[in-house]
């Protein structure tokens, strides 16, 4: 009985290979194909960079992996550590270990970042049959993370995304990722609007988290990221497919020539 109880989504697949795999994924929105066959595999600790011009389907791909209701995966498969994601609700994907950092996170009026994160963390812990965290213990934990990330200790008292600057929103998304400890993080334009110092801090946190075993898929327009991050692979997207994939050396070409052929 005890065994059965512990048979949660995460545990059930812990014996299978740990890897996030997208195989020939096609995504449509309202009948229009935006992503036309993408194959990708991210292992724990890897940092994959997804680049490409606006409108090439990068965000749509990320949203489809996270299960946005307006995206339809028409073909292909997506598995997280052996769990098929395709038919799961967004919250089930999150509970399996997926995190999506939004390019433009939605305002949630009346809800503070701290209380939100505690609610989510306790929801995830309950789903995992773990004990919940008391408000005081959580406050201490959050403070520690904020200090570590070089953020204002009072950030937890701010309203979720409402009246946050562009940079604060980005760091807020990263904060959520650090607190929620996913297995794989998809971060959409995580670096836009950040100044040089903030960028360095964010890059530092990402490489640190990758060392802890989180696999990353980062969407960015910055070809100089390699100076700050140990990039595993680079994928260039255009018109819904990967036009090029390779190691960080690909960034040199992009920096020189842009995304054009």
């Amino acid at each position: 009985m005890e065994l059965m109880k512990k048979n949660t989504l995460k545990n059930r697949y812990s014996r299978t290979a740990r890897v996030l795999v997208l195989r020939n994924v096609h995504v449509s929105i309202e009948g229009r194909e935006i992503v036309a066959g993408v194959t990708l595999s991210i292992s724990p600790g890897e940092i994959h960079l997804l680049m490409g011009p606006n409108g090439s389907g990068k965000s749509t791909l990320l949203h489809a992996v996270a299960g946005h209701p307006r995206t339809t995966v028409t073909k292909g498969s997506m598995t997280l550590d052996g769990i098929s994601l395709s038919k799961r609700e967004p919250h089930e994907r999150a509970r399996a270990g997926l995190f999506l950092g939004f390019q433009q996170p939605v305002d949630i009026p009346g809800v503070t970042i701290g209380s939100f994160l505690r609610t989510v963390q306790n929801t995830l812990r309950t789903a995992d049959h773990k004990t919940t965290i008391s408000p005081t213990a959580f406050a201490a934990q959050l403070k520690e993370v904020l200090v570590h990330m070089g953020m204002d200790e009072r950030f937890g008292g701010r309203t979720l995304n409402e009246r946050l600057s562009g940079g604060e929103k980005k760091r807020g998304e990263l904060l959520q990722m650090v607190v929620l400890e996913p297995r794989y993080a998809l971060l959409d334009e995580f670096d836009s609007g950040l100044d040089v110092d903030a960028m360095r801090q964010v890059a530092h946190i990402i490489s640190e988290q990758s060392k802890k075993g989180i696999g990353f898929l980062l969407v960015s327009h910055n070809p100089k990221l390699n100076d700050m991050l140990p990039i595993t692979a680079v994928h260039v997207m255009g018109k819904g497919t990967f036009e090029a994939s390779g190691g960080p050396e690909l960034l040199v070409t992009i920096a020189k020539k842009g995304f054009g052929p």
Partner: protein
Amino acid sequence: MPVLTKEKATIKRAVYSQVRPGAVQVKSVFRTPKGLNEDIVSQISERKNEPDWMRDLRIAAYGIFRTKKMPTWGPNLSKINFDAITYYLRPQEREMRSWDDVPAKIKETFDKLGIPQAERKFLAGAGAQWESEVVYHSLQESLKKQGVIFESMDEGLRKYPYLVRQYFGKIVPARDNKFAALNTAAWSGGSFVYVPKGVSVALPLQAYFRINEPNMGQFERTLIIAEEGSSVHYVEGCSAPRYTKDSLHSAVVEIFVKKHARVQYTTIQNWSGNVFNLVTKRAVVYEGGEMFWLDCNLGSKITMKYPSIILREPHAKGEILSFAYAGRGQRQDAGGKVIHCAPHTSSTISSRSVSNQGGRSSYRGLVKVAPGAHDATVSVTCDALMLDSVSRSDTYPTIDIAEEQVSVAHEARVNRISEEALFYLMSRGLSQGDATSLLVNGFAQAVIKKLPMEYAIELHRLLTLETKGGIG
């Protein structure tokens, strides 16, 4: 969730229980036969040993009730069967000053509702009404010594007849509306609060109203007098078990806010879905005084309630903050009224409503600036949140301005739970139901943050229970 970040949130029992307690069998010591007539009105008065003037007032009010038409401008009230209702039921011989003396069954229910615990924790005084009568009442000794009176309305009339006669029915006369007339004819219980000049009652006074029997009518009557420079916060809570037969709750509340006094009146109503809740609440504010109605309506079949403020003298202030949740089969018709009668008066009405599962909530408000009330400031904001497409929300604002030099702001917004917000929250691991609850609580936060901590936790909990099932 926001309110739970503070440490006090670990209090296991808030003011109201973890569950809605069910009905219990309680013997009554006296009850009138079903229905209302002049004889029954006299019986109630005799039973209470009232002075003649009160009996005459009741009988006159009964006449007004019989001739007044039902209000037709709002929700449909034709389902109320006045003949099926028990208008007066006395559960015990007299009011108790100690919980130990309250009948066991009644005590158990109030225990489940957390009433005595709440009193020990954060109240200056507490009252508990069961059907028609207040069964328990207490007030801190230090406040008694300062001359503060906090009694049931019946005790108030017995002990301070001159005070009651001076103020009773002066703001809400029987002829005001059909239900005010009914209350004046059949009133029983409620609170009488008197705060002498310059006295501040730091902790809230609380009264809890419980209907237990089916087809019961509860007609409490509350009168609050805050003398010059005084301040008081009165809190009322209401609940009833679920029956297939309808009950009627029709209260009248009158509040006198004298010069530079401040009164806050907080309601958290969680009636079951078979209660018609038709209440007249009105305050009159004198020079520099301040009245604040904080009115939270969950539950009931139909609620019609528009807390009102008459700003009678210069620099008087009024604020009405109302929150309503209309679920399946519910109609919340709430809002507020402010009448500016003097210059330099200011008022704020904010209404927030949530409609779910076909429920309907309406904001109905009136702001009137009378001739001569120059330099008045008026602000009205209505926010409605719709959780699905079968629910409904309307606003019926009336603004009537007879002065030129007046500042008036009016805003109304209808919000829906956006797919993007739901996806954002779900992508973090919250189910659709949990995500919806979080959004609703966030929407209600403007109200929740104004409540005392224990009530904030309770409102949060009630909203979570109501919305956890998700949308539709």
